[in-house]
């Protein structure tokens, strides 16, 4: 999956989660830019990302997600790891 594809899918998830079609995420987009992005909604957001990409992020990674750039990195790392260790899952993810 290319970075562009990840951004595209994340953008869709963000729009859906925060119910706002004007959202355009960039690497720098953070909770400061989106009103509803508080600690509670962050959990719902991460859960949605995990489900859509078929990944599971660990506690430390989740705590370290400060902006969309961090999320993209986390997704990249986990999608890669998943595809290495469990090739069967790749179909589902891609």
């Amino acid at each position, binding site marked *: 999956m290319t970075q562009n594809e990840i951004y595209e899918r994340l953008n869709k998830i963000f729009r859906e989660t925060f119910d706002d079609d004007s959202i355009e995420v960039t690497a720098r987009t953070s909770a400061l830019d989106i009103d509803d992005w508080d*600690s509670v909604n962050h959990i719902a957001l991460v859960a949605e990302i995990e489900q859509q990409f078929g990944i599971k992020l660990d*506690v430390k990674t989740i705590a370290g997600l400060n902006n969309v750039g961090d999320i993209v990195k986390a997704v990249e790392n986990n999608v890669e790891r998943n595809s290495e260790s469990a090739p069967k899952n790749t179909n589902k993810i891609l």
Partner: protein
Amino acid sequence: MEYKLITLLNAAKKVKGEKNNYRLAVLADSASQLLAGAVKGYGALQGFPIEIFEADYDQIEIQASDENSELYRFKPQAVLLFMCTQRLYEEFCRFTDKHLFAEYTVNKIFKLQEIINKRSNAVIIQFLFEEINDCIFGNYGLKVQASFAFQIKKINYLIMEKSVNSSACFPLDINNVKSKMKEGIFFDPSLYCSSKMAISPAALPLTAKNVMDIVKAVNGHSKKCVILDLDNTLWGGVIGDIGMENIELGELGIGHAFTDFQMWLKQLKERGIILCICSKNDEETAKEPFIKHADMVLRLEDITMFVANWEDKASNIRHIQKTVNIGMDSMVFIDDNPFERNLVRDLIPEIIVPDLPADPALYKCCLESLNLFETASFSQNDRERTRQYQTEVGRIQYMSDFSDYREYIRKLDMKSKAGPFEKSMFSRIAQLTLRSNQFNMRTVRYSEADIERIAADQRFLTLYFTLSDKFGDQGLVSILIMEKRADALFIDTFLMSCRVLKRGMEEFVINSMVELAKTNQYDFIEGEYIPTSKNQMVKNLYAEFGFQATGANKYKLDVKKYSQRETQIQGEDTYDSE
């Protein structure tokens, strides 16, 4: 009917703070914001707007014990109590007499419930504990009283056992939710560690649905009737083509899938859900297995109304609905054929039409997972329901033989018994207030505990009414709750089961009401009609009986001016209400 968590959370945000919103308080010892949001959203999407009060994290006891707490000022109608297994485990580890842990815990919980119920009158939705085995003893823990695996099952059991005699407590089966999850996990240790959330986001929609199922049942929304197709729904194959000997039932083909499904339906019938048949078949062919096939579980006596013909199913369903006289939105239509399902859904949007899986072996588990038949009461009367509706259907068919309705009514030989509420009837009376939607002047819902209170309260006069006729006993069909106000008796509740409409029962009840007023030296009766989407039929009832309008939907009757209405119902053993 299953929604995504973010769909629920977004729906929750759009709920407007209206006065009539249902007030639900959430008390939890773990982070519950997303759970509360999911429940609120679920309600919104189901047309049931909810206001939520969420106690601050871990404030259960403080909120419950302080009379002036935010909880009580919120005036909740329902309180959701959710203590999580993870906190319970911490307590268990510190606890010394481990074999007594369950009794200790359940006592504490019920004291809490009692105090909340006493101060707020709210019903309690008590989450059971997620059952885990910490594997300190492995499976052997189930043999060791002092193990957590043993104690947690015991706690859940004791909560259920205590709830049997509590009209306020409604346990929520969290372990059933857990077992029904299609993907993801119920408890996410990482998330609990970082955010103290004891239910994973993936499990929240289904948990919220179960909360709403209970809330809606408590407020009188429940399914009362299942309409069933026959070919490939109750048995395998098309009976008209292959004949009774070759339909799949029992040992034949995948017959067990169908017999198991029938067994489940029969359980539903025994708990008070009425079953009807709607099939495209010749009636004789369709009925044959119900009479003769050895492996049929359902028999004709289990079926309230049997419709087999070549008309379209939507018309037949409308005919069934009119005859048994139950709201369309209380009916569920089960058919293996997607064409019929879509047709019925299209033409009758109110009826519930679940999608069935292609494999008949999955019918039962698919319907179980939808939890369509949540209820907030169960009484002896439920077991009788099929028979009562059967006599009603017989009565309607008998009626079509009479050209003169009055003549028919006269020959029914109807008798009614009336008297103040008695203890043995409390659950049935509460149930009537929950289930009756159409002939219900104010649609005030009462729990069994409320009814008990009212029956004992000197400020109220109560009357129940039974009805029987040559076809059978209809049981308790109408109730009156009259509040003694300074210069008039006020009709707090006047409702009637729709099964007995147009038989002179209205006349009989209002005649009795006037007598009751006279006996208690009241010159006036005041009534009110509170409109809902379902009780249009009684909109003008008070006016028709000579009440004078005194304001919007408010009425007053001068008892002296009332002359007894004609009715064919004979009173029997009428007690004087003190």
